[in-house]
């Protein structure tokens, strides 16, 4: 506690630090909120400048951007059906229908408050037990457990956003296949990078990098949304959604308290595991809220609880993701890898010694993340009253801007032009997918988890001498795989019966 106060004092006792804190907060939120660019773009732009900054300021800046950016992506998800980042994808399912119903203010209000609550809860957990949690997680979760967790996540989230179970699974499988493009995780063998297609020979080093999920998301959501709206406009059937400015009431928050708590726990645990992070957290949070909610029939049609579930979970993952980074020196994602880079540029190595060698710095980081999450509420409340006004701008003026930013965002990811082509192709496919009842979010989920899952699966198989049943010899992985299989069986039975009796069957 004393260290936390010291950290806070260091943070706000210095004018320059306050300025950087504020800029990081606003910048992260803005970059998160603009479709196409995201917090990674901002991070990559700022990285070279951190060499000359004080290490405290640099690390603080990036942790604030991280917290604010994960929240910022929710705004466009809710207003335009365009998630700012993959972890905001499940927010679209209920956030966008709420906007169409003129309840955008409530949806953004819920996203703001829940992001903050999830973030603060995870920052507190992080401050209390970073070292302990990290050493537990690294021992308990080997490749087998990570694979089992991914399998479980896919099993329970597969039908999200699709018309029915079969279309949901097909969407996920399409994503899993796309995930196999590029070099394989074991032998580094390039796949699909050369061959012939209807007699046309092709060969490309670019494809050895694989298909990344960010351009797919931009295509599926941003480009295809622009196409869909353009069709509505040309047919004269587009209704401009009304801008709603109401904040959710206390009673509404109280009614979703269990969902919030569940999402905090899910988000925190998903965040601790390097590489899994916020995206699986958001999907799991959403699917579990759907599973246990009394209002499950209303999910996907503008249910506040859906927004709460996904936004709480993805922000709860932010604090947790700092744990393996700080305590073990293992970055979980692209932005945490940049934070690790900053530490190293300034001659510090994240790991157990960082609490001894650079304790002050760690506590400034903790304090910055805690306060960033609190300030999200304030800024978010302002945004509820202001950003919603964007809905009043005619879409034909917004569309070119969205497309331009999407192109920049796709290119900026890896500075490879193939990502821009992938985005436009995904935009056209996504437009067709939407009309057919398949789930674009399912494809993206399959793609993200397919890459992680294949990597974990191949390592597990090598460790277990290619004995598949080895998964059942380890308690955590056995439990997760069994639960996943049970979830699949139950959902198939339900689908065949066509009845909503899942709960009765499980209990």
């Amino acid at each position: 506690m004393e260290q936390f106060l010291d950290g806070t004092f260091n943070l706000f006792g210095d004018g320059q630090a306050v300025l950087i804190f504020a800029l990081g907060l606003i910048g992260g939120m803005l970059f998160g909120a603009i479709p196409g660019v995201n917090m990674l773009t901002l991070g990559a732009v700022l990285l070279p400048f951190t060499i000359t900054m004080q290490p405290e300021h640099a690390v603080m800046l990036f942790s604030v951007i991280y917290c604010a950016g994960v929240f910022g992506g929710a705004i466009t998800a809710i207003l335009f059906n365009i998630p700012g980042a993959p972890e905001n994808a499940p927010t679209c399912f209920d956030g966008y229908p709420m906007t169409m119903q003129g309840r955008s203010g409530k949806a953004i209000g819920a996203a703001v408050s829940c992001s903050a609550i999830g973030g603060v809860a995870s920052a507190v957990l992080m401050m209390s037990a970073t070292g302990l949690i990290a050493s537990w997680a690294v021992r308990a979760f080997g490749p087998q457990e990570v694979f089992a967790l991914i399998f479980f996540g896919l099993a329970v989230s597969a039908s999200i956003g699709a018309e029915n179970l079969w279309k949901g699974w097909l969407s996920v499988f399409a994503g899993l296949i796309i995930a196999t493009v590029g070099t394989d995780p074991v032998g580094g063998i390039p796949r699909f990078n050369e061959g012939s297609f209807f007699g046309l020979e092709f060969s490309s080093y670019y494809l050895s990098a694989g298909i990344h999920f960010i351009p797919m998301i931009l295509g599926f959501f941003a480009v295809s949304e622009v196409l869909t709206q353009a069709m509505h406009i040309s047919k004269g059937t587009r209704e401009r959604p009304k801008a709603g400015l109401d904040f959710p009431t206390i009673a509404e928050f109280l009614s979703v308290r269990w969902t919030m708590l569940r999402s905090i726990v899910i988000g925190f645990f998903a965040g601790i595991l390097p590489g899994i992070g916020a995206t699986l957290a958001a999907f799991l949070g959403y699917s579990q809220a759907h599973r246990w909610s009394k209002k499950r029939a209303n999910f996907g049609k503008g249910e506040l609880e859906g927004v709460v579930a996904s936004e709480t979970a993805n922000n709860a993952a932010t604090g947790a993701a700092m744990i393996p980074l700080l305590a073990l020196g293992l970055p979980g994602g692209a932005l945490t890898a940049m934070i690790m880079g900053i530490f190293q540029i300034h001659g510090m190595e994240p790991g157990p010694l960082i609490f001894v060698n650079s304790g002050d710095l760690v506590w400034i980081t903790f304090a910055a993340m805690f306060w960033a999450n609190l300030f999200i509420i304030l800024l978010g409340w302002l945004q509820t009253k202001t950003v919603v006004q964007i809905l009043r701008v005619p879409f034909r003026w917004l569309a070119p801007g969205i497309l331009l930013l999407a192109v920049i965002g796709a290119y900026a990811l890896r500075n490879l032009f193939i990502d821009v082509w992938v985005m436009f192709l995904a935009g056209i496919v996504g437009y067709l997918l939407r009309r057919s009842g398949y789930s674009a979010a399912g494809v993206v989920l399959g793609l993200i988890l397919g890459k992680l899952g294949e990597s974990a699966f191949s390592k597990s198989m090598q460790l277990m001498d290619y004995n598949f049943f080895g998964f059942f010899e380890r308690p955590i992985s056995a439990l997760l795989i069994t639960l996943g299989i049970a979830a699949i069986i139950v959902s198939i039975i339900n689908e065949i019966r066509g009845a909503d009796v899942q709960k009765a069957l499980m209990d």
Partner: protein
Amino acid sequence: MKVLQNIAGASAVVAVLLMAGPAAAMPDKPAGFGNRPLTMIVPFGAGGGSDQLARAMAKAMEEEAGLSFQVINKPGGGGTAAIPDFMLAPADGYTVLEHIDNAISAYAAGDIRENPAEDWIPLCMTQITFSQIYIRPDDDRFSDWESFVAYAKANPGDVTMANLGKVGSKELVVMQQLSDALDLDVKQIAFDKPAERYGALIGGHVDVLFEQPGDVRNFLDAGQMKPILTFLDSRPDAFPDAPTHLEAGADFDALKRFRGFYVKKGTPQDRLDYLVAACKAGFANEGYAEFNKKKYMHLIDSYRDTEGSIELINNAVATYRDMYKQLGIGN
């Protein structure tokens, strides 16, 4: 007093001149070159080892040669995805590629067509380092190389090693040479992300790790990893307790990890000369030297000029091809 000050001043000047020796040797800047920023392509992600090196070197070359660099990361495909963009850029000296020895093994295996020693011109190598084998210090089955070998021989095929798994990688080739020489049976577990291996060793999911000391310095300092074997001809000062592979009875010339900078073939000679001189001056830069020291790059000679780099590359290609023939990989 005045005299003393003069002497002090003069010796300071001499010291500065000595320190800045390579910088003083900078040739004249070719007319117009460097008026706009140069692009430095890094084929790996922001924040990683290659990215840190590129940014440190860009800063050093800015200070020494007055060139400014824009560092651009083009990650993917184990470093291959960046190559087409580099090959598409005009050979005008404005595009510099950072790459590591992966490019050489990829060329030897036939995964890429470009020969780094012929189709590209190496400006210099600025990081050359050796590999080691690491264990957990609290492992109760073995505590040094001798007890590790005894354990591995008693339990053939049981010991797992976390490795970067690309077929024909430096790691796998070196381990194959070691295993052949000592008749060891160590199970290689292929990982695709370097940092995951560290967690796998610390968390007890694998038994040993193959890595370069600079990449795991934080774990070494924290006492979470311990080297038991060094792949080098003699024991470096920093690791006096770990035997070398020669001492362990394996007689081969171990491949090293090296990182360096390239431009395309056909770059005008005056610009090439300037860049080569800039790279040399950058290596001698104080800030860069400090960076390299943190990465344990001062233990062996970490610098090669263009000729030295070409020799290093050609030797490595020959070793890889030879090993691939024995192992039956590549073409």
